[in-house]
């Protein structure tokens, strides 16, 4: 790189860290625009509001770096929220929690197994997880008869209520869960043999298979983990809102997807990690917060999110095009 001019190097640096720069820019805008933005209360608020998306994005990020999409996450979230409240009412909190998480794990595993059976590539993960999301929707609709379930917080199940509503050293529990998941996944990815295998499968499935890596097993495992994340997110959401329904998770898979892409992950590149998930979740959270503080219309907010997604995707493809490579303009 020695020969590149200062300006060219700056361009390369910005290209590589576009997500981080974007996040900084958002924070600056927030600070300039609203005096309450940088208060501790608002920051914790942003974190708490983003934590459900963040927990989903952890799982989505794993699938994404292995070269796939998981569009069933929102539907698994809904199902898990229905199960946790429904089963808790009839049997108790522990049973509800166990069944909600097990359902998430099992449906995630079903995603993985189906994708292995069809020998599906990236494009097929779209269709199969989409199909599974419909299955989830019909299960939760059947289970709830299509109604929303409510949990009246008469202090019966304090543990359940505390998942979404209490604090550990002033930090909301959902945020603690999100950060814990980030940390665990990051450690697994970066320091374990399993993590290396996930990266290798993301980098090149054929070469990994021919090098003796159990590609099908890794796929199933990663989709199971993603399902589990959706299950956890469902429990958190049910506890925070004390309500559940077959549609409450609708659209959340797209938020997770936008967060992962805004964080700078590339599909199937076998690169990036939970740092990208954190940055992406923060971008999405702060953006939403700024729009809420400025009273932006909620339909318009969806438009802005879509634009962020398109912007990130187009910036990425600009880097790939031979004539647009900033490094070569040196």
């Amino acid at each position, binding site marked *: *790189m020695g020969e590149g001019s200062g300006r*060219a190097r700056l361009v390369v640096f910005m290209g590589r860290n576009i997500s981080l720069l974007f996040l900084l820019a958002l924070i600056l805008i927030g600070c300039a625009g609203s005096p309450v933005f940088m208060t501790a209360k608002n920051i914790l608020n942003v974190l708490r509001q983003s934590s459900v998306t963040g927990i989903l994005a952890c799982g989505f990020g794993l699938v994404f770096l292995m070269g796939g999409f998981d569009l069933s996450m929102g539907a698994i979230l809904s199902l898990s929220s229905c199960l946790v409240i429904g089963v808790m009412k009839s049997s108790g909190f522990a049973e509800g929690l166990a069944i909600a998480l097990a359902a998430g794990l099992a449906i995630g595993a079903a995603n993985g197994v189906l994708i292995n059976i069809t020998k599906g590539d990236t494009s097929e993960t779209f269709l199969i997880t989409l199909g599974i999301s419909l299955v989830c929707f019909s299960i939760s609709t059947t289970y709830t008869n299509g109604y929303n379930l409510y949990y009246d917080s008469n202090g019966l199940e304090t543990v359940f209520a505390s998942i979404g509503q209490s604090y550990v050293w002033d930090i909301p529990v959902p945020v603690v869960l999100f950060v814990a998941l980030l940390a665990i996944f990051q450690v697994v990815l970066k320091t374990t*043999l399993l993590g*290396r295998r996930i*990266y290798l499968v993301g*980098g*090149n499935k054929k*070469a990994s298979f021919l090098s*003796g890596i159990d590609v099908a097993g890794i796929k199933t495992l990663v989709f199971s983990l993603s399902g589990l994340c959706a299950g956890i997110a469902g429990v958190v959401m049910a506890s925070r809102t004390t309500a559940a329904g077959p549609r409450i998770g609708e659209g959340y898979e797209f938020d997770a997807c936008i967060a992962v892409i805004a964080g700078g992950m590339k599909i199937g590149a076998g690169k990036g990690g939970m740092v990208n998930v954190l940055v992406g979740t923060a971008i999405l959270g702060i953006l939403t917060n700024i729009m809420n503080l400025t009273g932006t219309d909620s339909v318009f907010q969806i438009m802005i999110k879509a634009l962020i997604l398109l912007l990130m995707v187009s910036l990425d493809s600009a880097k790939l095009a031979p004539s647009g490579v900033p490094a*070569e303009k040196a």
Partner: protein
Amino acid sequence: MCEREGETLSLSRRRMEVEMPTPALRIENLTKSFPGVRALRNVSMDIYPGEVHALVGENGAGKSTLMKILNGNYAKDGGNIFLNGRKVDIGSPKQAMSLGISIIFQELNLENNLSVGENIFLGRLSEVSGSVARLDWRLIHEKARSYIEKVHGNFSSRDLVGGLSIAQKQLVEIAKALSFDANIILMDEPSATLTDNELDTLFSIVSRLRAENRTVIYISHRLEEIFRIADRVTVLRDGEVVAGYLVADVDKNTLIRDMVGRALENAYPPKTNAVGSEYMVLRGLSRRDTSRSVSFSVKSGEILGFAGLVGAGRTEVMRCLFGADYCKSIDISIDGRKRRIRKPEEAIRHGIGFVTENRKEEGLVTEFEVAKNITMASLRKVGRLIFLSFAREKSTVNRYVDMLGIKTPSLTKKVAELSGGNQQKIVLSKWINADAKILILDEPTRGIDVGAKYEVYKIIMRLASEGKCILFVSSDLPELIALSDRIVVMRDGGIAGILQGAEASAEAVMALACG
């Protein structure tokens, strides 16, 4: 041959005349840098109409950069390009085409799901049929047919390109170039995937292009071809033109010396391996797509060569043996014990390694670092319980970098940025580290340069000398004959014969291979 020499002579006479013709293509002081690399330094050359000009050089010498500049993929940093004496600026591949420059890339640029005719006129279909509203398919295919006839293609304009052989696809590419009335046709290693018969066809077409006073720039690693087909040759090394010759005035050793910058004593290392006792016996391997079954055995320390035309089923047999593809039945015993191999994982556990023919797709994760690629088939060895030991990985990788002479600026370099020879050494390291006792090498020297080939031969010889069994699949007969102890010749999915190393000659092998 005699005819060819006559042509070369007449050309040299022409070149000696005082009045030189205007070069069809003149390149003057062309310079191109990428961050950290000077890909081309003051490259100048003249290429005349009606000549076949060979461009040789090791990987990384700058051949492809030069081609991509001529095709408008890259912008040049400095220098000038003249076509027929007129200075031109080539801004895009489309512009290159309208200037009459056409490039046939190694990985052919055809759409497999379209017909030959559609491919030839891709993007110009409405132009050809003269109406945007309705495409006149009869006219399109008729016009396509005239170009197919020009290249003597034995296929119809309505055939799907996906169903053609690689040689036929190349003809389609050439037909496409002719349809643009390209005067300068660049061919990037067109022979890499061709059999000998197909190569003859290619050469006769190149000769015809020359007879029509078109200019062909021919890039190849196989020097024999250059002597058969080219009029002049330019040698590139490290982005500079180091020599230019009339082909008639130069010999192979001189070219190799110019390419690698030193003389190469022998093309092949001496045979030092000692063949031991029978190690692996394979009986009745039968595949889904052929009724023939294959049986052979290999001894420890033996290099067992596999010859055959493209499509004879060598790669398919190796993939079955390795458990990468389904096979109907197979009976393998390794070191006296029967083994079942249903997937690569099991093959690796039983000491088999597989260097595939296309290392970028199946052998390497090219976007990853050197280290991650070397340890990918033996991750347990660099792990402690479930964790990676980075220290152990680093020392493992350092050992192979020293042992095999892998040239990389650092262990964190992306494999994609290394030369073909170094990439192949990384694939070999991967299998040596996985403790492979039986190594399948499928075209291990394809697409790597002369100097690196010799190093790969040395590694193969060294592994055999250590008692490893080598299954050596190669379409390069000289190297196969020089290294192998025995040669299995395959034809139509079955074994046509097995030759002892001593009795193997190129003629004997080809006689069996062609039937």
